[in-house]
C-alpha cells in the first residue's frame, strides 16, 4: 500500500501524461517533467518527441542534458541539436573550446556532443585532445574513443590507435570495437597485438574484430588463444573468429577446442569446424 500511495502522489504531482504518437506531441513542459522525474527513458522519449519541434523553450532544457552524468541522456541531447544544424554549429564552437580548455568532465561532454552530431570538422581537435593521454580521466578518454567510433570516419583512426594503447582496459576494449565499424576501414592490423593483451576483455574483443575482418594472418595467434587461454570468453571468441576466417590450418586447434571443458567453447568450436569444411 505504501508503494501505491507513493505512486499516486507522484501521479497527482506530475499530472497525466499527454497522449502522443511516436515523434509527435512533444513540448518543453514535457521535457521539463521528464527531467524532474530523472527517468532516463522518459527523458529520451520526450527529447525524441520534439525532434522537429521549433521550441526555443526546449533549448536550455536540452542544453542542460548535455552535461548529464548518463551517456544515454547526453547522447539524445546531442542528437536533438544535430537536428538543428544552426544551433548545433554554435554549440560545436563551445564544445571545441571545452576540448582545449575544459576539465575532464567538460572534455567528456564535449567529445560526446561532437561525436554524436558528427562534427567531422572537429576531428583534428579530437585527435589532439586524445594525445594528452593520461592527463585525461578514463571517462574523457572513453568519450573521445566513443566519438571516433560514432563518426566512423578514418580521420578518427589516430584516436582509436591511441585508445588501443591506453593504460585502461575499458578504453582499449572500446577502441578495438570501434575500429571494426569505421566506414572504409582498410584492415585490422593495429588490433592484432591486442590478442596478447593482459586483460581477457581486450583479448576477447580483439579476437572478435579480427574474426569479423577474416584476418587470416593471425590464425596462429587465435589457435593459441582457443587452446590455451584461461578465459572462457576469449576461447569462445577465438573459436568463432577461426570459423569466420575459415582457414583449414585451424582444424587441429578447433578439433581440440570442440572438447573444451566449457560447453560454451566446445559448441562454438564445433560450429566453426563445420565452417572450415
Amino acid at each position, binding site marked *: 500500500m505504501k508503494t501505491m500511495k507513493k505512486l499516486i502522489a507522484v501521479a497527482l504531482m506530475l499530472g497525466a501524461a499527454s497522449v502522443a504518437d511516436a515523434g509527435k506531441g512533444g513540448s518543453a513542459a514535457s521535457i521539463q517533467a521528464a527531467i524532474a522525474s530523472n527517468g532516463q527513458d522518459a527523458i529520451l522519449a520526450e527529447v525524441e518527441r520534439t525532434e522537429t519541434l521549433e521550441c526555443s523553450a526546449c533549448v536550455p532544457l536540452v542544453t542542460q542534458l548535455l552535461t548529464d552524468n548518463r551517456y544515454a541522456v547526453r547522447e539524445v541531447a546531442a542528437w536533438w541539436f544535430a537536428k538543428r544544424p*544552426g544551433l548545433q554549429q554554435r554549440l560545436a564552437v563551445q564544445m571545441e573550446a571545452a576540448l582545449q580548455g575544459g576539465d575532464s568532465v567538460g572534455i567528456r561532454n564535449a567529445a560526446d556532443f561532437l561525436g554524436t552530431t558528427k562534427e567531422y570538422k572537429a576531428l583534428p581537435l579530437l585527435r589532439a585532445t586524445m594525445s594528452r593521454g593520461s592527463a585525461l580521466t578514463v571517462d574523457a578518454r572513453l568519450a573521445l574513443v566513443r566519438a571516433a567510433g560514432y563518426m566512423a570516419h578514418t580521420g578518427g583512426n589516430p584516436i582509436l590507435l591511441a585508445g588501443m594503447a591506453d593504460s585502461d582496459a575499458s578504453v582499449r576494449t572500446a577502441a578495438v570495437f570501434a575500429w571494426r565499424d569505421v566506414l572504409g576501414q582498410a584492415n585490422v592490423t593495429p588490433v592484432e597485438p591486442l590478442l596478447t593483451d593482459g586483460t581477457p576483455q581486450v583479448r*576477447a574483443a580483439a579476437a572478435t574484430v579480427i574474426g569479423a575482418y577474416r584476418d587470416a594472418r593471425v590464425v596462429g595467434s587465435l589457435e593459441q588463444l582457443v587452446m590455451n587461454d584461461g578465459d572462457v570468453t576469449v576461447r569462445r571468441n577465438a573459436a568463432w573468429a577461426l570459423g569466420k576466417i575459415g582457414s583449414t590450418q585451424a582444424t587441429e586447434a578447433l578439433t581440440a577446442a570442440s572438447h573444451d571443458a566449457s560447453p560454451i567453447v566446445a559448441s562454438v568450436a564445433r560450429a566453426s569446424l563445420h565452417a572450415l569444411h
Partner: protein
Amino acid sequence: MTKTFKSIAIGAALFTMGPLTGCGTDDSGGPLGNVDALIILQRPARNDDGNVFSYTSYIAGAHLLKLSPPTAAGTVTPICCDQQPELAGMDIQSYDLSFDATQIVFSGHSATDSNYGLYLLTLATGEVQSLNSDPGRDYVYPIFLPGNKILFETNNVVSNAVTDPMPAQHVDEYERATTAQVGTINIDGTGEELGPRNLSHRVQPSLASDGRVIFTQWDHLGPENQGDLMFMADDMTTLREAFGKEGDSASNSTLKAREISPGRMVAIATARDRTVQSGAIIDVRLGLPYEQDGVLRADNMMSEANATFVNLTPDVPVDMTPSSDTVGRYYDAFPLDQSEHPQLLVSWADGPVETEELAAAGLNAEFGTYLYDTNTQERHPIMQDPGMWDIMARPLQTRVAPPATAAEIDSSIGEEALIGSMNVYDSTLHQFTPGSIYGVRMMEGFSSEEGFPEMFGTTEFEGHAALGVAKVQSDGSWLAHIPANVPIHLQAVDVFGMSLFNEPVWTSARPGESRVCGGCHENRAITTVIDPGITQAAAFGPFDAMGEVPRANRIMAPADVTNANLIAADGTGINKLVGMSWGGSDPTQTGTTGAVQQVFNDNCVSCHGADNKAGIPGYTITDAKGNVVLNWTFNLSADPITVNYGPATDDGPAMQTFSASYFTMAGPDMEAIEMNNLMITGNFKVYMNPEDAANSILIQKVNPTQLFPVPNAAVRAFTTTPHSSVGYDSGRELTPTEFYKLILAADMGANYYARENNPHASSY
C-alpha cells in the same frame, strides 16, 4: 538447486485465486489442467528498458525458471544459468521452447559478454551451449523454426562480397538506434544467414501455424511512423503486411504477436515509448472470423483491409497515459486455448506503468505471471517475486511444428532479387487511369549510418538513390532486378518521370528471391495466380535496377553531378541520375553546388537570387505573441543561411541551416510550424512537395517535357505556360536532365543530402 518462491497476490480482492475453470483445454483442471509445469523468464525489474524497439537492457541476475505445478503454490526450480560458472551475471532478453519441449533457445548476456548472444539450453542435462553468434553484435528474440533452425533478430548486418562487402547496419527512424534485422541459424550453430533489411527495426517474432513468422516492423517513410505486424516465410522471403498499416490499429505500436488460432493473434497494443514495452492485450483477427470445431479462426480472406481487433483489456491505456491502480499494463500474453474468449498466461504489473511516474517515485514496474480470463477479465496470480519481472510464461509441453514455408529462392536469379507486378493497375490503394503509368521507379533507402549528419534535410525522409524506372508493358506487367537485402521504395511514374503514386513503405528481398505481386498492393483477400512467366515483362526480360552494382557505385559520377546534359535524345544516360544532392557537402560554405543547385545556378539566380529581382512577395513567420520569427523572400541561390526561429525580441536560437534555395523550395518544417503555433503570413508557398513532384509548384511552373520513352520537347506535363516563356539565364529551355533532376529531387523526399554530397566522404 530447488527452492520455493512465495507468490504474492496484489489487490487481493480482485485477484484472489479462484477455481481455474472456464473455456479451458481440460475439463477437470481448468486451462492449465493438462500442464505439468510452466517456463518463466525472471529478470531483475527495471525502468529503463527503452522504447518498444529497444532490445538491449543489461542487468545481471536473470534466470529461466520452471514452476511445477503451474499454480501459485507450485515449486519454482531455476533451470538456467547458475549451473555453468562462465555464465555468471547472465541477463536473458527472450527465449523460446523447442517443439519437442526438450530445449530452450535464449538471448543472453553474461558478465563477460560484450553483447547479447544466442544460447541453447538442453533441459534434460541442464547444459548450455553457445550458438556461434557474432560476439560483437546483439542477437535477440530467438524462436525455433521447423527443420532444426532458429530465427532471431540482430544488429549484425547482412553483407555481399560483390555489392556490399562491409555495410553498416541501418539506424532507426530517429537516426539514433542501430536497427535489429532478421536472421536464421541452425541449432548446432552452423549456417547463419542474415535476411533482407528494413530501414528500421524488426522485432518480436513468433511462429504461426501456417509456418510463417509474424513480427513487428517499424514503418517509417516520411510521416509514416508506426509499429505494424508483418509476415515472412521462414526463409526470410515473401514479406507481407498483416496488421496495422491499412486498417485502424488499436495503437501506435502492435507488439509481441502470438497465434491464438489460424488468423488470430494475441498482441500488446501500446505507445512507442514510456510504457516499459507493455500495454493492452488485443485479439487481432487478420481475416473474417468464423468458428470451426469449437475454434474461432480468422484465416478466411486474410488481408489488412479485413483485419480487426478486440480489446481484451479495455481499461488499459493503449497510449502512454499512466495506467490506473489495479488496471496496470500487460507485458506479454500467451494463449492457452482457441475459443472466442481465450484463457491467457500474461505478465502484468499494477499501477501507473509509465516510466516518468515510476522514475519520479523511484520505483520499477513489477511484472508478475497471471492467468487471465478474457471472458470475466479476472486475473489469477501465479507468481511474482518482488524486485523481479516474471514474464513470458508458457507451458512446458510439446507443440506441433508447422510446415516449412521456405523454398522461395531461385538460384538462377543470382545475387540480386527480382521484383515486379503482374498488372500494376490492380491496386487497392490508388485508382490509376488506364495507360497513365509509364513505369515503376525503384529507389534505394538508407539512413545516417553511411555518415550523414542525423538528417537528410527538413522533410523527415531518409536518404534516397534512384535505381531506375522499369517500363510497364501493355498488359500492366513489369519486372526488375534490384540489389538484394536493400530497402526499396516504389513509385508508379508517368511519361514525364513524375510519381503518380508512392508505395508508402520500404520493401526488400533476399538474393535469388522473386517478389512478384499481382498488382500494386492488390486486394490481398483474393487469390492471385502469380506466374510472371506469362507476362509481357517476362518476355522482354527484367529491367536492371542496379541489381549487381556495388553500393559504393550506386552514386552519380562526380563529373555528372552538375552536368545538364546527361540524358541523350534517345533517352540513354538517364541511369546516370542517381542521388539528388542539393548543394555542397557543407551547406555553411559559400560557392558550393550540387545536382539540384546546378539547375538554379545555370537558369534562375539572376532573377531569383538574394536580391529578389523578380520581386516575388515574401512571407513572414510570427509566433503566438506576434513577434516576427522570420522574413523570407524567394531565393534560389546557393548562399548558406541560418534561420533564427527564436522570438524577434531576443537573440533566439538558430535552428536551421541549409542553402537559400533549399529553404525556398522545401520550406520550413511545416509540422514544426504547426506544433509551435507559429503563424505564416504573406506569400508563403512550399515549392517542392516531398514525394509529390506532380503537385509541386516548382514542377508545374517549369512544366517539364516528356521524358519517356524518349525525350519529346513538344509534349508538356501541364497545360500551363512553361516558365521558359519568361526566359532562363541559360537562354534555353531546361534540358531533360534538368527537368528530371528537379522531379527526382521532389519525388525522393526533397532532401538536401544524398550520397553525392555526404560530408563523411571528405577528409578531416
